[in-house]
């Protein structure tokens, strides 16, 4: 089975926001509501796990930054 693409906070949070928006709308469908609620709980658990484990990556640029070379008098 193909490994699921690693999900980031922004993507998961956007999905959660979509579900909250659905609940805030006037749609009332019990079957769908239960399904969405379960999806939301799973997402919340996943986001919490991500927040507790994700680490920052520090990448140092190797370029040495300096000013432009001095223009010579013509």
């Amino acid at each position: 089975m193909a490994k699921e693409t690693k999900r980031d906070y922004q993507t998961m949070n956007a999905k959660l926001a979509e579900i909250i928006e659905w609940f805030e709308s006037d749609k009332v469908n019990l079957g769908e509501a239960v399904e969405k609620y379960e999806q939301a709980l799973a997402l919340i658990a996943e986001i919490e796990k991500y927040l507790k484990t994700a680490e920052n990556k520090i990448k140092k640029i190797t370029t040495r930054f300096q000013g432009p070379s001095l223009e010579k008098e013509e």
Partner: protein
Amino acid sequence: MKELIFSPADFVAVFNQTLELAYPVVAIQGELTNFRVSRNRWVYFNVKDELASIKFFGSVYQLPGPLQDGLKLRVVGTPRLHPQFGFSITFQSIQPVGEGAIKKAADFLRAKLEAEGLFAPERKRPLPEIPRRIGLITAANSAACADFIKILNERWGGVEVILADVLVQGMEAPAAIVGALDHFEQISPLVDVLVITRGGGSAEDLVAFNDERVVRAVAGSRTPTLVAIGHELDISLAELAADQRASTPTNAAQIVVPDRRHIIIQLDNVGSILQKFLMDTIGTIQTDLTGGRKYLTSQVFSSLDQAKHSMEASRKLINVFDPRAALKRGYAIVKKGRDHVKSVRQVVKGDNLGVELSDGKIKVVAE
């Protein structure tokens, strides 16, 4: 000693070679005089003290901002004897020296850039709520860099920090900071936010952040900028040009990412809110069902009521036409045999007639 005889050109060449060997780069500190800019490109001025005055030459791109005669400056450059124009120092960098001069130079620049609208609030862009990639411009081995990364790691994870190691003070700092800003302009995709930071220091230490080239590069950045210079007193011009400023490197990390602990608490709240939403959904469905039942019951009762009213009306109407009601009021029904007598012409003398009253019948003979 044997007398050396040079041609002017040879002397200039030898002189320059000697200078290059002995003093390839010099730093001279003094008061600025005769400052002028030619064709918007070439800059000429002298730096003097009580006893001497030295000529300088260079390009406007090396200026730290607008300058005025009388300012105390430190100028770094290469001394050189020009074949036609004589001795001058080609400057590479200029820095105001002493709090008075630094403040004065910053004030000139501030007035100039303010007039251009570089610090206008409407130019400010919001920083991304949660960045995926941060460009960090600072001295890699500084406490400021360590503080920023420490707080960033404490608060949030999953961010890629691209660190540009630059000098944040000294004559070369402005060019280095501008170089790093240029680098972040070139990379694709752009980072989500640029953080430029250093710790506190004297006015002289922080002078690079009042350099026109740095301030313009910050203002011109395509990526939103956060500048955090750890100092209490005057705000640097780079901070004024940035989309947002922070008071210290730690404060910069606090602004640039949220605290994961707060988000986790919020997520727990979201769980409770969604549970309430679900219960509300169930409640709404129940209310709808109850409402439907009530509606149907009321419809049935209303139909029954209507039927009852209708029957009552009919009954009243029938009563009006009931002949017995007329008999009660004193009228009588006269019959001859089986026929109702409606006219005297139907009756002749001696006819036996039946008269019906409300409480009984009597027989009579017509006379």
